[in-house]
C-alpha cells in the first residue's frame, strides 16, 4: 500500500515544475534586471500627497 508514494512523488514533482516555469517567466518579464533602483525607490516618502490634500482642504 505504500505504492501511494509513487503518486505523491509525481504530484509534488508536477507542482515543483509549475513553480519552476513561473520563475522562468518572472525572470523573462524583466523585473530582476535592475536590482538597485527599487532599493532606493522604496525609501521615498508619500507624504507629499497627504500634504497637498491637507493644503487644499485648508485653502478651501
Amino acid at each position, binding site marked *: 500500500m505504500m505504492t501511494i*508514494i509513487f503518486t505523491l512523488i509525481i504530484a509534488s*514533482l508536477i507542482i515543483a515544475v509549475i513553480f*519552476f516555469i513561473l*520563475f522562468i517567466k518572472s525572470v523573462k518579464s524583466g523585473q530582476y*534586471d*535592475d536590482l*538597485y533602483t527599487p532599493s*532606493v525607490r522604496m525609501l521615498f*516618502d508619500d507624504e507629499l500627497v497627504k500634504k*497637498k490634500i491637507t493644503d487644499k482642504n485648508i485653502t478651501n
Partner: protein
Amino acid sequence: MSKKDCFHCGTECNIHKIEFDNKIFCCNGCKTVYEILNQNELACYYDLEKTPGTIPSEIKGKYDYLDNENIASKLVEFNDGQTAVVNFFIPSIHCSSCIWVLENLHKLNNGIKVSIVNFPKKEARITYKNDQISLREVVELITSIGYEPFISLEDDDRKLTKINRTLIYQVAVAGFAFGNVMLLSFPEYFEMDEYWLNRFKPFFRGLMFVFSIPAVAYSAKDYLISAYKGLRHNILNIDVPISLGILVLFARSCYEIFSQTGQGYFDSLTGLIFFLLLGKVFQQKTYSFLSFERDYKSYFPIAVTKINKNKTEENIAVHDIEKGHRLLIRNEEIIPVDGILLNGNALLDYSFVTGESMPVIKKSGDKIFAGGKQTNGAIEMEVVQTVAQSYLTQLWSNDVFQRDNPKNIKSITDSISKYFTMIILSIALVAGIYWFTIDKIIAFQVVSAILIIACPCALALSAPFALGNMIRIFGKEKFYLKNTNVIEAISKTNTIVFDKTGTITTNKASQIHYDGTTLTTHELSQIKALLRASNHPLSRMLYDSLTMDESKEISEFQEILGKGIEGIVEGCKLMLGSGSFIGSKEELNDQTKIYVRINDIIKGKFIFQNTYRKGLEEVFKHLAKEFKISILSGDNEGEKVYLKKLLPSHSNLLFNQKPEDKLEYIKKNQEDKKNIMMLGDGLNDAGALAQSNVGVAISENINVFSPACDAILDAKFFNKLPVFIALSRKTMTIIKISFIISFLYNIIGLLFAITGNLSPIIAAVLMPISSISVVIFVTLSTNIIAKKMLHLGY
C-alpha cells in the same frame, strides 16, 4: 560645504551669485530649477541629498528637430496614437534625488503618466500621452530641471542589447536540479534494509538521473564547450579539470545506477554545478560594479578651450561642452566631440580611433569627429554633439592602439594556470591509479574529489579584483591608468626618466622677462595670435601672460617640435623659438628663452624662469633610493647645476634633447634590460612615452591628452608619485599572497582527497568558500594599504 556654494548644484558661487528665497545659487539656471521644483511641491528633491542638482543647459530651439515625425518615431519605443513610451539615456543621473525627481515628473506636467528610472544604466523610461505633450516638450521638460538626455540619432537601429539572462536561467536549472536530487537521495543516505525503500530505489535513482541531465547539458555547457575549444587548440585552460570532473561524475553515476551497483553521485554532481555557477554570478556582479565605477568616477577630466561670444577664452571640462559651443583646438590637441570645422587648416590624425596614421584634410564646413588629433595649427570648431566621457576612456584602452604593442605583459594569471592544470591532472592520474589497485570505488571518489577541490577559481578571481580595486583607488587620487596591465608594469620599473619643461617645472606662475627691442602692442598681438595655435608649455605660458586682443588670422602655421613655431600674421612672417631656429648668433647661455623674429629682424627674447613643482625635492629623494633617475630636457643646460644638487651622482642629466633623441635614449636603455617609466607632458615626448614600459603624462588641466601614454597624473598630485609606485608593488605582492592562500586551500583539500577522506560534495562546497575568502582578502588588503599609504604617509 561653505555658505558660498550654490544650493542646487554645489559649485562655488563667485561674483555672479543670485539670491532667492534665502538661498544662494550660482546661476539663473539653478535658480530656475529650484523655482520649478518648489512651485510644484517637489522641494523634497533637496532633502534626499545635499546639492543634488546640475546646471541646466540652454534649451531654446535646441530640440526643434524632435517635432519632425520621422526623427521622433526613431526614438520612441512604443506609440499607439494616444500613449507613447520613450527611453532616454541621461548621463547626469547620479544620486537618489535624481531618481526621485525623475520618477515624479508627472507632478511637473500632467501629460506624463509614468516614468521609471534604471539607475545603473542611467536611463529613464517615460510614458506620456502624446496628445497632451509632445516628445520635444518632454525633452525640454527634463532638460529644464537639469537632466538633459543624450540623444544620438546615429544608432537608428537602437542597439537592442538583449539583456543576457542565460546565467540566471542556468543557475535556476542547476539549483532546481540540486534541491530535488538532494531530497531524492535522502533514503540512500540511511543505509537501512527496509523492504519498501529497496523497492523504490530504482525509481528514485531514475528520477535523480532525469534531473541531472538538464543540469549537465544546459547549466554546465559553458564549461564543457570552453574546455573542448581549449583542448582543440592544445591549450589547457582552467575549465579542463572542471569539465573532466563533471563528466567523470556523470558517467560513473549513470553506470552505477543502470548496472544497479550503487547510488551514483548525482547529488555531488548537481551541487558542484550549482556552486560553480553561483561563483560566476558573483564574479559578474562585481565586474559590472567595477566597470561602472570606472566609467563614472575614475575617468580623467580633459579640459578644452571654449571661445565665448565676447571672444574671450576659457577652459572648460569636456563634460560641460554643449551643442553650439565654439571650441579652439590647438596644434596637437585632440578633438573631444563631434562638430563642424569653422576655420583653420585641419589636418587630422585619426590613428587613435582607427589605427590609420595618414592624416585627413578637412575644410571649413566639414564635419569632424571626436578622437582625431589636429596636427597643423589651430582650428575653431562648433560643437554638434557631445560625446560621452566614457567614449574617450574606452578608446584609450582600446585594442586598436595596442595592436603592435610589444609591451603586453603576459598576465600573471595566464602563466600560472597553465602549470597548475597540468600538475592537477597528473596528481589525479597518479592517485587514481594507486587507489584503483586497492579499492575501485574509493579510486573513483578520490579522482573526482581531486578534480573538484583543485579547481583554481580563486586564481582567476584574485588578480582582476586586486587590480580593479587599485585602479579605482588610483582614479580617486587623480592618477588615471589605461588598464589593469599598467599596475603590473609599474611594479616592474627600475628606471625613471623625467622630462623637464612642463613635467618637473610647472606652467603656472612663471616669471617671464623680455630682453631686446621694445615690441609695439601691434607686434605683441601678432605674437599672441601665433602662440594661440601652439600647445607647447612655453607657448601657453607666454600666451597667458600677454594680455592684448589677438583675433588675427594666421596662415602657414608650422610647429617644429623642439625648435619653435612660425607662421604668417597680417602679412608678416613671425618666428618664435630657440636661438638656432631663428638664426640668432647669440651665445647660448643658461636660460630658457623664446626668441622673437619678425620679418627677418630678430627683435629680442622672452626669458623664462623655471618654477619647479612643489615637493620635487622630496619626490627625487624618495625615488633616488630605489630607482635610477634620468632627466631628459629639450632645453639648454641652464638648470644643470640646480638639478645636479637634487639628484644622486649616478643620475643622467641630458639637455638639448630633440624628441628623437629622447626616443633613442629610451630604446638604448631598454636594450640594457632596464624597465623604464617615463614622465612627460605628452607632447614632444609622445614617441618616448609610447616606447617606455610605462608612459605617464602629467596633466595640468590642459588638453594634452596623448594616447601614447599609459597613465595620466594630475599635476597637483605629482608629489604622490613615490606612493603610487610603492602601492603598485604592494598590489602585486598581495596578488601573490592570495595565490598562496588559494594554493593552501587546494593543498589541504588535496591531502584529504587523496587519502580518500573527502566526499565530492564537501569538495563542491569548499570551492566557493575559497573563492569568496580570497576575494575578500584581496579587496580588504588593497583598501587597507591604500588608506595607510595615501593618507598617513610612509
